[in-house]
Each structure stands twice: as C-alpha cells, then as structure tokens.
C-alpha cells in the first residue's frame, strides 16, 4: 500500500509538557483519515509538525517521501483551526493570491463554490460572519488539487447545517487518489466519511487502522469506541 505520510519516533515537547511522545505512523494514500482524540491529545501539534510550522524535538516525518519543506507545501493543502487570512482583503483578492502561489489551484472551482454559497466575491473578509469566513477558507483549501488535504477541526465552530455543507464540500471536491487527514473530536458527524482512523491520547497513538476493520472487530461504531477509550 502507498503511504502518503510516515513518521518515526516523532516527539514534540513544549517546555515540560510532552505534546507528542515517540509517534510512529504510516498513513495510507487515497484514504479519508480521521485524526481523533480529545482536546489536548496532540492533534494540532501533529498537524503543525507535518506542515513544518513547528520543529520536532526528535524523530522525522515524510510526506510523499519528502521532509516538510517547499516540496511538501506544494502537495499539502492545509486548513488550520483559526482563520489565517487577512481581514481587510476581499474574497476575490484571496482567490487571486492562492492562484498566484499554488499551481494546482483552480479558480473556476473556487468561484463555483463561492457562487453556490452566495458569497459576494468583492466582499471584504471582515464584513463576513465567522461561519462564512470559515467556508471561504475551506473553499480555498478544497480548490487545490493537492495530494494531501489536512483539515484541522473543520467542523468545530460551525452550526450543524454548515457542518453538512463543509463535509459535502470535502467529499465532493477531492480527487480519490488524494488523501484527507481530518482532525476532530466530533466523531459522530464525520464517522460515515472516514476510511481510516488514528486515535491519539496524551500525545501517543493508542489505536490505528481501517474503519471497517475496527468496527467489525469491536462490534461498535467509531464514536462508541471513542467514548470508551476517552471516558473521563
């Protein structure tokens, strides 16, 4: 099986706190992968390491065979938890910015989604609601033809209707040969779209595998397993 992401002995500490502790992972290409775990389990830290936004204390990561760098940034489309866009920019300016920087960005696809959501392209981001801003960011990320989409809590801060839209957008806009890594603690909302899961607890991988295999082995849904594993 082709691997899109591999890491060995990955450790990240923040002063005395160990956020990720000796992680070894092989994530298959062409899958929708759920990175699951409660708040503080190390999901965002892992994602930032993959994107090269943090440096590990030890261990290494390979994405499509490359260590985080320009080559991996070309193949990863990343949606962070917070909004990283400049508020004074217009929607159309941001679309142009992405088109300038990413060879795999499709303006046509972006405007198609913007139109369907009735977002005015000439509107400045600061005039849009929080939910609409998140949608704009998701549109930008999903308008790329990336090999790996990394979505950090894409449905965390939006209402259920918007959640449906976001999940539909993700499913209907990605190339099946590409992979999607979705980090979330809202398992029930995304369980149906996942092929593969990684459970993180206290910075360690506590379970990983194909969703169907885990479900048939445990005789429970991923959501139920999650509730059991992370029971307070």
């Amino acid at each position, binding site marked *: 099986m082709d691997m899109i992401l591999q890491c060995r002995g990955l450790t990240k500490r*923040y*002063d005395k706190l160990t956020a990720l502790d000796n992680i070894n992972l092989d994530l298959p290409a062409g899958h929708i992968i759920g990175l699951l775990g409660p708040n503080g389990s190390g999901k965002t830290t892992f994602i*930032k390491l993959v*994107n*090269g*936004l*943090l*440096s590990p204390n030890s261990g290494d990561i390979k994405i499509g065979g490359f260590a985080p*760098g*320009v080559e991996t*940034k*070309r193949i*990863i489309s*990343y949606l*962070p938890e*917070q*909004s*990283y*866009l*400049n508020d*004074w920019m217009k929607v159309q300016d941001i679309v142009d910015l992405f088109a300038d*920087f*990413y060879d795999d960005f499709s303006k046509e696809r972006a405007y198609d989604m913007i139109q369907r959501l009735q977002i005015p392209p000439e509107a400045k981001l600061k005039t849009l609601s929080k939910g609409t801003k998140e949608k704009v960011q998701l549109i930008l990320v999903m308008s790329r033809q990336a090999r790996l989409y990394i979505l950090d809590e894409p449905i965390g801060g939006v209402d259920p209707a918007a959640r449906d839209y976001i999940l539909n957008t993700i499913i209907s806009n990605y190339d099946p040969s590409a992979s999607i890594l979705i980090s979330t603690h809202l398992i029930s909302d995304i369980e149906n779209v996942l092929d593969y899961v990684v459970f993180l607890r206290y910075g360690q991988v506590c379970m990983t595998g194909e969703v169907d295999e885990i479900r048939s082995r445990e005789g429970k849904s991923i959501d139920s397993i999650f509730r059991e594993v992370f029971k307070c």
Partner: protein
Amino acid sequence: MAAVSRYLLPLHGVLILLTLVGRLLVSVTKTTALPRYVSTTCLIIYTLYIIFVACATIIYLISYFYKTMYGLEGYLTFTLPAKPWQLLASKTISAVLWELIDGVLVVLSIITLVMTKEVWTAAINELPDIFSRFQETYGFGLGTGIILPMVFCALASLTQGMLFFYLCLSIGQLSNKHRVAIAVGAFFGINIILQIISTTMVFSILPNSSYLYGRSGIEELASLPRFLWTGFGVSVLLCVVFWLITNYIMNRKLNLL
C-alpha cells in the same frame, strides 16, 4: 508590498500635504504678516508629524513582520510553497524600500520648506566650484569619495537595522511564553554585546593610529572615505550574520503556536 502600502501611503500622503500647506504659508508670510503663534504652531505640528511618521513607519514595519510571520497569518505565509529565505527577502526588500521612501520624503519635505529660490540659485551656481575645489584639496571627488559611500552606508545600515529587528522577533518566537518580551530582551542583549565588541575594537585600534596625535580638519576629512567604507563593510557583515541566524531559525526552529 500592497499590504504595507495600505497604511504607509496615507501616512506619507499627509506629510506631503503638510509640506504643501507649509510652503503656502511660507509664501504668504512674504507678503502678509501672520501672527507669530500661527507660524510657531505650524512648525511644532510639522516637526511632531515628521517624528511621528518616522517612528510609525518603523513600528508598523516591525509589527507587520511579526503579524505575517509569527502571528496567525504565519500559518498562511509558512505554508506557501516558498523557501524561508525567499519570505525573508521579500519582507526585507519591502521594508527597506519603505524606509527609503520615508527618508527621502522627509528630506525632500524639509528642503521644500527651507530652500528659497535665491538659495537654490546660489547652490546650483556654487556646486561645480565646490566639487572641483574639494577634488583639488583632498585628492578625491566629493561624489565618489563622500556621497557615494554615504549612500551605501545608509542603505546597509537601514537593511542591518531591519534585519536586526527580524532576528530579535525570530529569537522571541522560539519561546512558548512571553515571546514579545523575549524579543525585546534579545534586542537590548544583542545591542549591549555589539556595543562592547565595537568599543573594544575602537580602543584597541586607536592607540596605534595617528588619530590621537592632533590631526587637522583636512586630515580628518581626507580619511573620511576610509571610515565610511569600513562602516559599510561592518554593516554588510552584520546584515549577513543577522540574515543567516534568522534564516536558520525560520528553517529549523519555527515555533508557530
């Protein structure tokens, strides 16, 4: 560049406007006697605004760098398919360019207000003579010996100053807490170290040089190009050091929280 210009253009637009108003007032005072407090108030406002523009430009450029590199916008900046040195170069070029624009506008503004037609005419008539007498007295041209190295020095020290701020902010982001305070600490710490090094160097060179043995003004001016080019060399060296460390931090020690 467009993002920076968004704030700095209006700021400098007001400077141009104030200069034009000032020039108008200067013209008016030639024919009409204005109350003294009017000209004094205008002069104070103008001087304060020039200081404000210079400070605001630097503060804005530094905060813009921090916001777009180590703030939330850094998530976009550092996931663009560009190498860290390219990001650093683009920020440095636009910042130095804006500092140059600021400096040139301030100088032009003061010249516009101070220079009268008579002074201009005298300066234009006298300049060729000044240049040729300078060449005769010192054995080198005013342009190539003084003005040119001064321009290079100004450019290098502007770049060095900006890269120094970038380095301090990059050191600050290494920490998980109090990042700005650590950047400020790095600023003062490195400055003190550089001062100690430069003072030690000056004192080790001075006793061996002829500088202490009562040189004339002519001799001092004659050695000015050498000092300017040395200053330029030191600035370039510091630029390289600051650049290399900042680039290393961005490459290997990025810590976006």
